[in-house]
């Protein structure tokens, strides 16, 4: 009996917390499905729409270039992931496997970047990006590059890859070198395939981080055609001022891609094996 009561209260609390976690979205979905004949400020509030409609979705879809935002987000997140994988793997390898002058300095310089918050250095980063003409007022390609470069590599990624290379038995390298591999061949043909699981983790978490990034794009972007999803969604508020049906529908629409991604990759996020992998 005591066991039953204990289990019952655990489920009760967890259901309550789960509901609190998703309720803001449920309420947003509910609002987005309410037609013009239903007062969205009605007391008492109703979760199930009485004047059910998809019209808010088609309305916001016609006025807002979600496909464009989505493509921009894909380009930026894709480019960020791609560069992070290459640069982190390349930098992590010598830190794990080679002896060279200045290794300690390199190691601690990279470690130091973890302590520097982007928010504190963003003003010079902005000036440098302007000076390098990596902004959307030059052209779209420059705009994308400017969105990507400040996040093209992270200390987190470098240390993750270093850790992965440290775990490979040294005999692997010896065998490959005896077989006549060059360092570059050894790296690309032998070592990279062995650290694929870490690369996957790095890719997934970099993708999520880049996809949600809001501060940097809202600083550098000037053209609406270049907006990424978070910037575009924030802009809904200005476009539709108090039309909460449209704002709600647009917010939900913008969330669908990342939701699918999360559900497909959920084991990476909730297994706990990659503890602390998202940037704080």
């Amino acid at each position, binding site marked *: 009996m005591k066991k039953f009561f204990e289990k019952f209260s655990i489920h009760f609390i967890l259901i309550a917390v789960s509901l609190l976690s998703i309720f803001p979205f449920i309420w947003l979905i509910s609002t987005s499905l309410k037609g013009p004949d239903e007062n969205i400020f009605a007391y008492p509030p109703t979760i199930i729409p009485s004047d059910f409609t998809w019209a808010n979705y088609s309305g916001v879809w016609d006025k807002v270039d979600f496909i464009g935002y989505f493509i921009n987000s894909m380009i930026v997140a894709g480019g960020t992931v791609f560069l992070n994988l290459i640069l982190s793997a390349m930098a992590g390898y010598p830190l794990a496997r080679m002896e060279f002058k200045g290794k300690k300095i390199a190691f601690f310089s990279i470690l130091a970047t973890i302590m520097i918050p982007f928010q504190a250095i963003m003003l010079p980063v902005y000036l440098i990006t302007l000076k390098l003409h990596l902004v959307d007022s030059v052209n779209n390609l420059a705009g994308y590059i400017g969105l990507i470069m400040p996040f093209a590599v992270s200390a987190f990624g470098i240390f993750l890859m270093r850790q992965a290379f440290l775990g490979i038995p040294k005999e692997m390298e010896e065998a490959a070198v005896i077989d006549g591999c060059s360092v570059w061949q050894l790296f690309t043909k032998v070592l990279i395939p062995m650290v694929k699981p870490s690369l996957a983790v790095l890719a997934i978490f970099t993708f999520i981080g880049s996809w949600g990034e*809001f501060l940097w794009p809202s600083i550098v972007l000037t053209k609406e055609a270049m907006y990424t999803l978070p910037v575009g969604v924030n802009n809904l508020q200005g476009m539709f001022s108090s039309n909460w049906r449209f704002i709600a529908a647009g917010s939900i629409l913008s969330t669908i891609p990342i939701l699918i991604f999360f559900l497909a990759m*959920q084991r990476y996020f909730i297994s*706990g094996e990659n503890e602390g992998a998202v940037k704080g």
Partner: protein
Amino acid sequence: MFKYYGKYAPYLFLLPAGIVLLIFFFIPFFQTFVLSFQDYSYDIYHPAWIGLKNYVELFHNPIFYKVLWNTFIYLFVAVPILAIFPLFIAILINQKIRGVTLYKILIYLPVIVSIVVAAIAFKWLYADQGILNYIVTSLGLEPIGWLTAPKWALYSVIWVTIWKGIGYYMIIYLAALMSVPKELYEACDIDGASFFRKHLTVTIPHIMPTIALVTTISAISAMKVFAEIYVMTKGGPLNSSKTIVYYIYERAFENLDLGYASAMAVVLLIIVMAFSFINIFCFERNKYQL
């Protein structure tokens, strides 16, 4: 091990990452200090060197103290809740029960969703005639200006940060809980210890390092909040929900006062670096194998 790589190989491998870090981390890091000694407000292309004047002004600016105070309230409210509540949830999820994966997915969901969407969702909950005020008024109380009353705005925004962080820290705690030896719990069960007693005497002491880690990372991220405020209140009303990163953004990109904003950035830098330093050298030594 024999050396199979040439003299230059390590440097060539490090070079691409090094260039990016140099241009987008190290140079900006030092330039932040340089900017803070300059005045950009008259001519953005020819800043004037004004020594410590930005700092003197900053420390005589009541809004700066207000903003700093708000940031610390953010910390004092969000950090203890984020250090304790997710641990409680993690312990519950760690019991042998059904539906664990579903609970984890639902509680983790806010972490994955864009902060902009989360802030919009909460703005809607907080609306003057919104659903939260319905609850408040049906309890017989006056409706609350969640985002419009200076007394409440900051706390309403803090709640969004907390809500969005719970799942993230829960997963960190779940990973730590795996390392607690099962025999200790069995011993407790034999002794007939209660649920709370068991976790107070076994779990908490065992995962103390993780609690400390969560405290410092949640403190660092609380120092850096921006999007919640930008989307929900723009720092208002009357600066009541303005925190340091938002104020830096406002001074730099709305008032185009890069020097002044940089002086604030230096203050932010020093505080965050202190937290991070503790974090890395006390709690994350293993992660970096120092």
